[in-house]
């Protein structure tokens, strides 16, 4: 583990690692301690969203797939915006983002350490496509619906949000502390990047209010969607 990575562990987490024999002793920035305990440093960046502000234009999705794959696609997007145009606001739109979980089950589930904590890039949880064997165990391990990892049927590999670390089609540097394409492209500022880990326990920990005074000027309400718990 690098010194840099070690210095960023602000709250150690011990996980019972998968018991499968042959698991590598190190999954990127995570460390496997004796007794199969996995130490996983916090990610240094997170996406948060305002589901009451999103326009449903899907530009974040196509820009995500473009920057990572060079193709415009919703299925290959690492952020998923679902909508029902007949439903009432704010329930007409759901924004599903990877939470860069504290004890990321998808990282723990990977049998080949393709899904790892990237110590070179702000401890983001990301999948090395060269190592992914397409077993989909990470997808199964993700506790959220829709699953925050995507199956790429062409490459036959799994992908997930890497906060734009691996973006060959983004002209600027991506990753924690740098550009996130979805944040930058969103026409209404409904996605934000933060470096402080959101509340992991609340179901709405990654849902924030990004509607400022300007929003009110255009006629919209700034009221929080969820009471703080």
């Amino acid at each position, binding site marked *: 583990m690098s010194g840099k990575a070690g210095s960023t562990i602000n709250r150690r987490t011990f996980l019972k690692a998968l018991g499968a024999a042959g698991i590598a002793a190190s999954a990127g920035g995570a460390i496997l301690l004796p007794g199969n305990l996995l130490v996983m440093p916090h990610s240094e960046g997170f996406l948060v969203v305002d589901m009451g502000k999103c326009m449903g234009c899907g530009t974040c999705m196509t820009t995500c797939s473009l920057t990572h794959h060079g193709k*415009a*696609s919703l299925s290959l997007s690492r952020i998923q915006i679902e909508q029902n145009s*007949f439903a009432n606001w704010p329930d*007409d739109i759901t924004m599903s983002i990877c939470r860069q979980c504290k004890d990321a089950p998808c990282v723990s589930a990977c049998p080949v350490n393709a899904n790892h904590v990237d110590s070179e890039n702000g401890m983001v949880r990301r999948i090395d496509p060269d190592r992914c064997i397409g077993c989909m165990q990470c997808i199964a391990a993700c506790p959220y619906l829709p699953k925050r990892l*995507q199956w790429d049927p062409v490459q036959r590999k799994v992908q997930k949000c890497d906060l734009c670390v691996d973006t*060959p089609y983004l002209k600027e540097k991506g990753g924690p502390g740098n550009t996130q394409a979805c944040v930058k492209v969103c026409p209404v500022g409904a996605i934000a990047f933060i470096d402080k880990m959101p509340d992991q326990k609340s179901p709405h920990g990654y849902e924030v209010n990004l509607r400022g005074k300007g929003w009110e000027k255009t006629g919209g309400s700034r009221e929080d969607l969820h009471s703080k718990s």
Partner: protein
Amino acid sequence: MFGFTGKILHINLTTGTSKTIPTEKYKRWGGGHGMGSALFWDLCEDKTITDGRDSKNVVCIATSPFSGTNVPSAGGRCEVVGVGVGLYPVSWFTRSNFGGRFSATMKYAGWDAIVISGKAAQPVWLDIRNDSVNIRSAKDIWGKDTKTTQESIWQTVEEETETIDGWQQLPTPKGSGYSTQKPAVLAIGPAGENQVATACLVHDAGNGAGQGGFGAVWGSKNLKAISFYGTGSVEIADPAALVQARFDAKEFYAGDVDNPDASHWGPFGKPAKPVLFCDEPSKKRRTQSCQGCINGCRGRYDIGYGNEVSCQETSWYSSFAQKWVKGDKQKASAIIMRSGELCNRLGINTYPLGEGLHWLEHLYHEGLLGPDKAISSSLDWEKIGSPEFAEQFLQAIATGNDIGKDLIDGWVQAAYKWGREEDHKTGKLQFPYWGMPEHGYDPRAELEWGFETIMCDRDMNSHCFNWIFWQANISILFGQRPFLAADKLAEIVTSKLAPYVDSPAALDYSTPNMYSDDVMQLTRWHIHYSRFWKNSTLLCDFRWADLFNTHTPDSHGATGSEKAGEHVFWNAVTGDTMSLADGLEIGKQIWALDNAIWTLQGRHRDVVKFADYIYDQPFTKGELLPFFFWPCRDEKGEWHYQDVMRRSLDRDKFEDWKSRFYTLEGCDPETGWPTRTSLAAMDLAFVADELEKNQRIGKEG
């Protein structure tokens, strides 16, 4: 083939079969309208038909290379072409356009366009999931409104698709694909089923292909809905350039919703906000947009109605509802939003309703319309403006009952049926062109709007230059100097119009200059721009062309710019090396092809004319507005914003204008028909062959 999927789906409803057409042959047209016109040309065996409800009609719903991408305010637009219904005096081959996510989903399913020919024996809907195409019975959804129809299809597809971990699994040629999205459905409501001239196609809550009567076309074919569901991608030639251009469009040109500034101008420059003719029904809403939009124009609310109802849908009943509730803005808003939503559900184009209902109200008060009157109607006309009347009226329109019985073939047609042709001629019924209502921008003042509409097939509804009206007039209404002085604005705008325009004079709409070659060249630029960049590459009319934009230091808009111009996006997506002007050349070819179809339908230059009142009466906008300012030059050649009201068109001068226009477009000025030489020069000799066979080829000049 970057930008395109490579496949076009052709459904023959008569035989119940489908086949795949390679896109390659149609690539030259760009997509959308051009591609649709070319497909119509090839697949419609009788191009002389003048009623879109004829089973020989062919209707094409086409995407573009931009569909499904993040090109700003383009990714979700979709074009519909075919012979229309309800236009006057002839239902031309025409077009309509709608937003949402239908075109994007069509692309993700692997198709560039879908062409419908023939007529099904029984009501059907089309179920397309990636490569899988099924023509299915619509027995259970026939008679349902567009919302119920879409929800029913969503449910059917969901039940028949395996859901794994919150993702729907669909077969693809390369294994399973996954999606979290709903199928994109385009449907008709009862109005379409009853083949009403003003019936439209509706997608999601508020995207309608309104003009042209395509709902009636689908109804005549027993086609209730088309559903696309796809898990694929659009291949992009230069993804990094595309992403960067999209970033630049936002950074340099777009309005910022978090820092709205009402003083900024330009279609890109206004922040996302619902466009409503009434108060918002609730502040608890989002601004909602089509796929890929840079600043949305509709809302979704927390109140159980009004989702995506905007613009004209909120206008047609607005004055009546406000009168009914005596100015209570919130009560009026509820009536207006609900009646707009009902139009979407019934599948009615709202555009003719506003001007049309004022006319019907007039006939009622004149004692000509009502129970036991010459024009029989048992609706409760005393309650016009109430929610109950809106419901009665819209149901009558959609089902072709009561007053709707005579309106089924069109509004101007009804005027003639009722012996009220004078109303059409005098402007009591303000439908100045092709049986369509005046848009709010009268041809006598906003010249390009009228000239283009009459040289094409339907209300042009293309706002590129119209932003000039707003920039000038809103400022003047507030007692402020317009942000851009008239000479500066003329210089900026006309600098974007090469190679057609080489002088700011093209924007001078003063009476001495209104029939000039300069204004004509601006009109030609706009027709060709709209034909290609808007209707074929499918840039949204509300946001493009961005001719001037006060967010930039020099007030030049995104149009033609090297940061975020139309061609920048085109080249990034397709890998071409096209210029803005190259697109205009394709637009010219598209107009030529359309004109050839109109010629086969029987068009002659003599029918290309406005309703009489446009020539016979000075424009006062029904005395609504005190002025209509536009950049003009005075006798000394100096630029001012000048009132261009209180004038009419001169028949002889406009006829001369037409002759010059036809000549420039390579047509015979005697007839308006295309010539072989000009068609051959555009690689359209096959079109000339067909015209010649029908003895409708223009004489060479």
